[in-house]
């Protein structure tokens, strides 16, 4: 994952900044690679730009050491195992996923592993039952790649604390199977418990129920969403903004949120 040197830290290079930097760099965020993962290097880059240390995790590794002692995990986008059967259906059974499910969902409540599933990662989290519901093919049946506006509905999760509640952000969306679906009871419960974390604003790009773009588990350590915050962390390579030149960096908050929570010792 570290083939090419990355841009420096996105944090200001002030006196205090340096200390904060090294503090943040102490937080280790694992990024999972399955065969067919595509955005793993991008997610690792986002972690580094946010100031943290990215750690490669391999789908086939077994046992507790497979997690390499990371403080949080990102399951990135892509087409794991080709996604031919159902998105995420096969990855769910990877040995590493067993460890992630254990650490994120069933450990003692004080010590839950923060997990972010992006796109295919979200699909894998639903297939693994860490998050409820499932994904269908987009209602228009096509792959869609666009700059998508979202509203942050819940800023109290591990991955959204650096956003304001109700804040609107723009991040790229790109998928074929992104239509979020769950039964009415589940949807009502998600709404009631504040677990709808992101909603599509403006256009619902895939027919998702109640415009849901992302959700969390009850404890807020596990978050999944279809759009790609890791593609909106570096000016020049993100979504279009008012100034042109792909300068949108609205996705950075995901990575700074978890880092500040981790170094803030709230874990």
């Amino acid at each position, binding site marked *: 994952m570290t083939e090419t040197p990355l841009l420096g830290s996105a944090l200001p290079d002030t006196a205090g900044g340096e200390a904060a930097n090294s503090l943040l760099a102490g937080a280790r965020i694992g990024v999972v690679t399955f065969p067919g993962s595509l955005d793993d290097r991008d997610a690792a880059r986002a972690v580094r730009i946010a100031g943290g240390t990215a750690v490669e995790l391999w789908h086939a590794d077994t046992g507790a050491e497979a997690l390499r002692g990371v403080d949080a995990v990102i399951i990135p986008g892509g087409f794991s195992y080709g996604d031919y*059967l*159902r998105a995420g*259906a*096969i990855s769910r*059974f990877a040995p590493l996923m067993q460890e992630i499910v254990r650490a994120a969902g069933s450990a003692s409540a004080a010590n839950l592993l923060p997990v972010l599933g992006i796109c295919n990662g979200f699909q894998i989290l*639903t*297939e693994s039952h860490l998050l*409820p*519901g*499932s994904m*269908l*093919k*987009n*209602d*228009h*049946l096509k792959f869609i790649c666009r700059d998508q506006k979202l509203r942050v509905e819940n800023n109290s999760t591990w991955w959204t604390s650096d956003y304001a509640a109700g804040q609107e952000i723009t991040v790229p969306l790109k998928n074929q199977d992104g*239509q979020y*679906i*769950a*039964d009415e009871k589940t949807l009502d419960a998600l709404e009631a418990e504040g677990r709808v974390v992101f909603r599509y604003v403006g256009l619902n790009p895939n*027919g998702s129920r109640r415009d849901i773009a992302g959700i969390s588990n009850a404890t807020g350590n596990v978050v999944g969403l279809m759009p790609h915050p890791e593609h909106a962390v570096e000016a020049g390579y993100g979504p279009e903004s008012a100034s042109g030149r792909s300068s949108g960096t609205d996705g950075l908050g995901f990575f700074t949120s978890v880092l500040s929570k981790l170094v803030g010792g709230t874990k």
Partner: protein
Amino acid sequence: MPRIVVDVMPKPEILDPQGKAIVAALPRLGFTGFSSVRQGKRFELTVDGDVTPEILQQAREAAEKMLSNPVIEDVVNVEVVAD
């Protein structure tokens, strides 16, 4: 060689986007006798030796655990087909 066929269909209460697209397109080809279409999956598992009860049980479990997702799909059929 014997095969086990597993059929998986989207749950009836779920709007199936592919089926919807097909039912909209059928009349354009002059096929007007159908009121709805649903698209599911059919798997054919080839068995190495004989289809023992254990193997059939394996197929049933694979159908529930991996070949289908109970949130959106039902396993509607698991059966042995001779060749």
